[in-house]
């Protein structure tokens, strides 16, 4: 680690100014997906399948269309045919074709002059179904007697003889596995399961779409990525992407779940059918749970070899995941993450992506990594206990560092796992004594992070203030971090930079705010755009001074002669250059577009103390510590916020959250009362330590920080519960009845 870089101080980076959109958001003024209306607007509603798997024999909407106020009904017949690959999957998920594939699958949609009339109209649409056998469990879906959900959906990776529900097979590794296990003093193998959980953003999906007969349209939508919405909706509707102008609203949380389409093409199709009137669609919470998100569920088998001193010698993982009725469960990324934290001589991975009658899974914060961590970090903990070793020491001993070849192939650059483990060891939480029924659990976590397609523009205003246009919606303070980096680069005040999230017509293609990339990629592009603007401002100053542009430097927000030989001129501040730019060559701006490389992975270590009530099995989180490498924390408060939010979601996944289906495959808990996410009284303060091992791939050293934090809580909680009770839970969630049963089984056995 370059110490001088770590210690380098900046004027603005690392400070905690008020976020630019704070005022709008504390006054209720900020406009989210459902907050906007348009003249002549209609309201849309969706009819959804009540069956987990059923052939659609007939849809009769005549009664609905006869209801006064109803302007349009659409079914799959209103969409183009002949789509292939993921476009077909998206269309099929938007609205069912011949078969409804899960409880909640859209079957028809209606637009009417009011929301209530639209709801009434849904009840007047008659659908005849032929109920088909269904399957919702991943292992059941692989058994020979399981109904084939979509024969022919498998890709070429799947070996002969597997059930047609297996649509992708993954197999990779390196090293001599047999020799690795032979070198171990202890070899253990265990199986684990995790249930599907939902991203649980508090804002339901909402959009306002308009599409004319000429194929030109507009959309206002809450999304993590409006270019993705544009491309996907255009493909599903058979229109040209450039004719669709998509403006992102403020977004009430996404966590990966708002990177794809659900109701958006329906709003546009309804609008087109209703003579181009705008159509607003807002999902109910039950629709969000039944038809969007969730993450995959997983069944996992892990085998690990360890020496007496804690050295890991071999690791083997088999993960089976279902991501609903479509290919796309995050099996590959789960396997890539499984052993990513450790230097192990031999690893082998096998994965199965399996179809079931559940909603199409969407990305959820570090997709796949939390499940993988639950299995691997639980087993490592169990083996440490068996050998009487300290779990943090064992992790340090095996931790990957700069130059280690990762379990999934690439060799790591500078990374901060060792530093994070050391910071965790040094934290005061580690020396708090524990009482009866209390236990401490630790776990590490990993996420790759992502760069992605990025386009940013920056314009100097007439008064020397600066507008930055980015294409990554601000979900957790990225306007603030991008403004800080831009102001730092330009040498001007933070307040003099305004960062706008702009619509699809204003920039080149931007990937969504996903992969923890907004501050990394849009920030990096904004810094480079600022440098372009600086170069132009230096040229203008050089022209005014009559010297060579090479002889001009940029310092503290002003052009200055580069040295004594350049001549003696007073600094020319940005405001002065800006005031005269019209007569010195025209507007000054900077632009940068790139598929951003130089991503730095982020490792984290969590330590949790719990108390388990032996009478009820309820787990109380007493203390929680997140240590994670941020590369460089641009706005530390929002970095801490990512750590704390990720931990809270992971705690919910570990202890409570799960999709529960009845025997007919219907989701039993599509409301927050029954799908219980952590509330304020469930949690303690969440302590954070920001480790900073700068990422050389970013001008200020940034790594993405959004995702890693959801990964360690699952195993950390399992490890803490095992420490508190002696009972090892290998199936999530670790809800009170399951913990109680495990405690009783342990006592009995």
């Amino acid at each position, binding site marked *: 680690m370059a110490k001088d870089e770590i210690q380098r101080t900046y004027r603005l980076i690392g400070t*905690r100014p*008020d*976020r630019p*959109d*704070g*005022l709008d*958001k*504390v*006054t*209720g*003024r*900020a*406009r*989210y997906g*459902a*907050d906007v209306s348009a003249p002549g607007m209609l309201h849309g509603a969706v009819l959804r399948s009540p069956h987990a798997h059923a052939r659609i024999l007939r849809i009769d909407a005549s009664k609905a269309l006869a209801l006064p106020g109803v302007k349009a009904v659409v079914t799959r017949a209103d969409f183009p045919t002949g789509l292939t690959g993921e476009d077909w999957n998206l269309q099929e998920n938007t609205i069912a074709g011949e078969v409804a594939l899960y409880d909640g699958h859209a079957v028809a949609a209606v637009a009417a002059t009011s*929301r*209530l009339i639209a709801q009434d109209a849904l009840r007047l649409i008659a659908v005849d179904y032929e109920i088909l056998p269904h399957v919702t469990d991943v292992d059941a879906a692989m058994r020979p007697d399981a109904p084939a959900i979509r024969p022919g959906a498998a890709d070429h990776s799947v070996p002969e003889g597997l059930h047609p529900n297996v649509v992708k097979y993954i197999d990779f590794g390196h090293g001599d596995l047999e020799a690795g296990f032979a070198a171990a003093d202890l070899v253990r193998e265990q199986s684990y399961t995790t249930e599907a959980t939902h*991203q*649980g*953003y*508090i*804002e*339901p999906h909402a959009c306002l779409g308009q599409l004319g007969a000429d194929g030109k349209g507009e959309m206002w939508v809450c999304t993590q990525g409006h270019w993705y919405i544009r491309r996907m909706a255009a493909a599903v509707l058979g229109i040209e992407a450039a004719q669709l102008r998509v403006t992102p609203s*403020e*977004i*009430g*949380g*996404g*966590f990966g779940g708002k990177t794809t389409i659900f109701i958006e093409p329906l709003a546009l199709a309804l609008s087109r059918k209703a003579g181009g009137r705008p159509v607003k669609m*807002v999902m*109910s*919470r039950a629709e969000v749970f039944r038809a969007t998100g969730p993450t995959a569920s997983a069944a996992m088998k892990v085998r690990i070899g360890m020496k007496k001193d804690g050295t890991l010698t071999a690791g083997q993982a088999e993960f089976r995941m279902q991501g609903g009725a479509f290919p796309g469960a995050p099996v590959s990324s789960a396997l890539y993450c499984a052993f990513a934290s450790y230097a192990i001589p031999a690893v082998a991975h096998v994965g199965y992506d399996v179809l079931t009658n559940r909603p199409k899974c969407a990305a959820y914060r570090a997709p796949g990594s939390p499940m993988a961590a639950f299995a691997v970090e639980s087993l490592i903990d169990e083996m440490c206990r068996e050998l009487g070793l300290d779990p943090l020491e064992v992790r340090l001993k095996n931790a990957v560092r700069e130059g280690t070849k990762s379990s999934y192939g690439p060799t790591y650059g500078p990374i901060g796992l060792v530093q994070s483990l050391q910071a965790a060891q040094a934290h005061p939480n580690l020396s708090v004594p524990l009482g009866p029924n209390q236990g401490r659990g630790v776990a590490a976590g990993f996420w790759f992070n992502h760069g992605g397609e990025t386009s940013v523009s920056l314009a100097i205003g007439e008064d020397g203030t600066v507008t930055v246009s980015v294409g990554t919606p601000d*979900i*957790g*303070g990225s306007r603030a971090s991008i403004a800080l980096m831009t102001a730092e680069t330009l040498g001007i005040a933070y307040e003099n930079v305004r960062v706008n999230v702009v619509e699809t017509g204003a920039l080149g293609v931007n990937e969504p705010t996903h992969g923890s990339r907004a501050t990394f990629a849009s920030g990096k592009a904004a810094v480079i755009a600022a440098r372009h603007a600086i170069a132009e401002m230096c040229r203008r100053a050089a022209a005014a001074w009559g010297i060579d542009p090479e002889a001009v430097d940029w310092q503290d927000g002003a052009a200055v002669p580069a040295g004594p030989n350049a001549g003696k001129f007073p600094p020319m501040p940005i405001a002065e250059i800006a005031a005269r730019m019209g007569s010195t060559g025209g507007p000054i701006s900077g632009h940068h577009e790139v598929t951003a490389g130089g991503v730095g992975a982020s490792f984290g270590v969590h330590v949790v103390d719990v108390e388990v009530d032996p009478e009820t099995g309820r787990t109380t989180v007493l203390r929680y510590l997140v240590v994670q490498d941020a590369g460089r924390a641009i*706005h530390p*408060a*929002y970095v*801490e*916020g*990512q750590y*704390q*939010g*990720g*931990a*809270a*979601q992971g705690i919910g996944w570990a202890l409570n959250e799960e999709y529960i289906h009845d025997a007919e495959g219907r989701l039993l808990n599509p*409301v*927050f*009362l029954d799908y219980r*996410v*952590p*509330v*304020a*009284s*469930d*949690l303690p*303060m*969440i302590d954070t330590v920001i480790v900073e091992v700068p990422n050389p791939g970013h001008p200020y050293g940034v790594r993405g920080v959004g995702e890693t934090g959801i990964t360690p809580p699952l195993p950390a909680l399992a490890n803490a519960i095992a420490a508190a009770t002696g009972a090892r839970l290998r199936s999530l969630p670790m809800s009170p009845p399951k913990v109680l049963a495990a405690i009783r089984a342990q006592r009995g056995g």
Partner: protein
Amino acid sequence: MTRIHVTATVNGDPVEFLADPRETLLDCLRDHLGLTGSKEGCGTGDCGACSVQMDGVLVCSCLVLGVEAEGRSIDTIEGMATGGDLHPLQRKFIEHAALQCGFCTPGILVAARALLDQNPDPTEQEVRYWLAGNLCRCTGYDKIIRAVMDAAAELRGAA
């Protein structure tokens, strides 16, 4: 269905609107009065994003019918700042970075104000239990709790 004429006071101003008897107070605030600061996260009383005060009592406006507002006084997030001055809770939320996406924020601010109105010196645990009906999926609550405690301290100091 026949709409019903409703007269009420919202944030101190007289208002009237026509409510379908099936519409919630939240629907009426958002769709008839243009007050979209109160949010719908669930519509079932589970998330608190729609929190408002009705005659001083904290309610989920998604669980109140619009017609029930007749003759009542409603306070929403839009009325929390007085003129250009933010309520200390609003200021502290910005200062402590107590919001990420901000969707839960209006409801939490309204609920927290109702707490501080009746308990100016709450413990951390009291704040946590009072806000247990307000879901935030982004923050893990840590900074929210700190902001509320800090605002309470400031309000006590000012009193």
